[in-house]
């Protein structure tokens, strides 16, 4: 399995929307390589015909009655918001200038 490079970590951090600074990148990249090395052993363990398990105790078709129940008020739902306006979450601009 490949080592994880500093550039790759920067790319992944971008995908994960975390602004890592240079010091963090220098610190994290070698640590992630060591972690990956230590778990690389699993690559050849399971044969192709072994089915994957996503939940150990799977339940399917979990339904409940469709009835109206008490829920949060708008005020409660917005109580933890960094900013709100007119009963809505207020967020920074989503589109760039050219969009």
């Amino acid at each position: 399995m490949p080592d994880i490079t500093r550039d790759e970590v920067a790319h992944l951090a971008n995908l994960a929307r975390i602004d890592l600074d240079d010091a963090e990148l220098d610190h994290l990249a070698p640590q992630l390589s060591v972690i990956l090395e230590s778990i690389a052993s699993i690559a050849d363990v399971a044969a192709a015909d072994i089915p994957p398990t996503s939940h150990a105790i799977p339940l399917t078709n979990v339904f409940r009655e469709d009835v109206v129940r008490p829920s949060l008020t708008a005020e409660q739902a917005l109580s933890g918001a960094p900013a709100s306006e007119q009963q809505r979450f207020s967020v920074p601009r989503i589109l760039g200038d050219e969009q």
Partner: protein
Amino acid sequence: MTEQGKERGTSLLDKSAAELADLLAAGETTSVAITQACLDRIAAVDTDIHAFLHVDAEGALAQAAASDARRSAGEPASPLDGVPIAVKDVLATEGLPTTCGSKILEGWIPPYDATVVERLKDAGLPILGKTNMDEFAMGSSTEHSAYGPTHNPWDLDRIPGGSGGGSAAAVAAFEAPLAIGTDTGGSIRQPGAVTGTVGLKPTYGGISRYGLVAMANSLDQVGPVTRTVLDSALLHDVIGGHDPRDSTSIDHPWASFAEAARTGAAGDLSGVRVGVITELGGEGYQAGVQQRFDESVALLVKAGAEVVEVSCPNFVHALAAYYLIMPSEASSNLARFDAMRYGLRVLPDGDPSAEDVMRASRDAGFGDEVKRRIILGTYALSSGYYDAYYGQAQKIRTLISRDFEAAFEKADVLVSPTAPTTAFKLGEKLDDPVSMYLNDIATIPANLAGVPGLSLPAGLAPEDGLPVGFQILAPALADDRLYRVGAALEALLEAEWGGPLLDQAPSLSDVEPVETPGGAA
């Protein structure tokens, strides 16, 4: 230091939850008296222990007074009505801060209660406060809390385990008779092991997760943290059972766990087949841990159990599979912390876009371990690596479940040491993730397979005088077996020790305040 801080040994603080319930039922004490004793103890020792992130003295005393009123009217809400409890800071509590040990949720007050918290309130248990934890439950030492580490009551220079080190330490330091923890890879059981307390991870789906801030949905479970096996069972009876608000909750007619513990405490295990897992022991396990484990197995034999050795060959791959599945799920779960609807919002200079704000907020709000795991998970799920990492890990999960199935054909319960070592020093493994992850090597298989597991104290390791944990595992839905076998072993061990192991813990009344090494805060 208050009187309560010095008086452990003679006060209400020493009583188990079951004993407190009996005293309350007999009218020999009040919930207000018990709750006040806990609050005084917290005031006296928590500057040293740092088990709590938030103490709600006013709320707890009001709930205690209401409990006493119900009791006077002859209408207690449950057997534990009036017995106070501490709650890990990863469960939503209406009106009380819930930080998950993270700066990104500093100051957040949930507008609702988790189902478990609601059930505690309905059953009349006053909530003392919220306990410290590794940030978003990621860690084995509680050093990854953004608010500074918790200290092990047995030795303040050592870790209390993690991620639920706060709940375990609160119970071990007699600040609370009961606590709630969560266990994704061992976060209830491993802190239990290193603090000399009892902790149980239920069958996956056995206790509701509605209102639990998720780390890894296919692994996370809520469970009891206590000083005795019976107390865990009593608490499990209160918080367990089907919840329609959690789609992974099992609708199953659970029998009384307290009944199973009481049966077990008689000490007769005739006909019970106990399997010792070959792969979880020996090399890599501290000598004193192995010794206390072996002695406990011998006691089970004395109690009539039939002991067999069982091999689970794929368990050696559990840690690697876990460290792919858990970060993958965590990276997805923690995407919700986007600085838009709740939590920290950092505004970079200029005219930042929403994405700029997310990046800056997540960098400022998350600690190192959380960043490590989000990046690792993002990597494992990314195109080109998915099959090699996440896909393989899911297949290993199947193999581990099959190992359990084969083992449970030969044994009713499986046993192992809970953790490979006793508590290590604060700071020792803080910047060595792989070494830190090894602490969970014996607890992780149960999470991957969804089976229940319990840890109880097996004594002190001769070489360092620190607690050793004994783990018992049962098939899915057979949590009652853990209480039966656990209570039997506990009774036999306490007969040898001449009382609970925690009687041997330092009183904490004359400890010197310690400096925080590695100061995470």
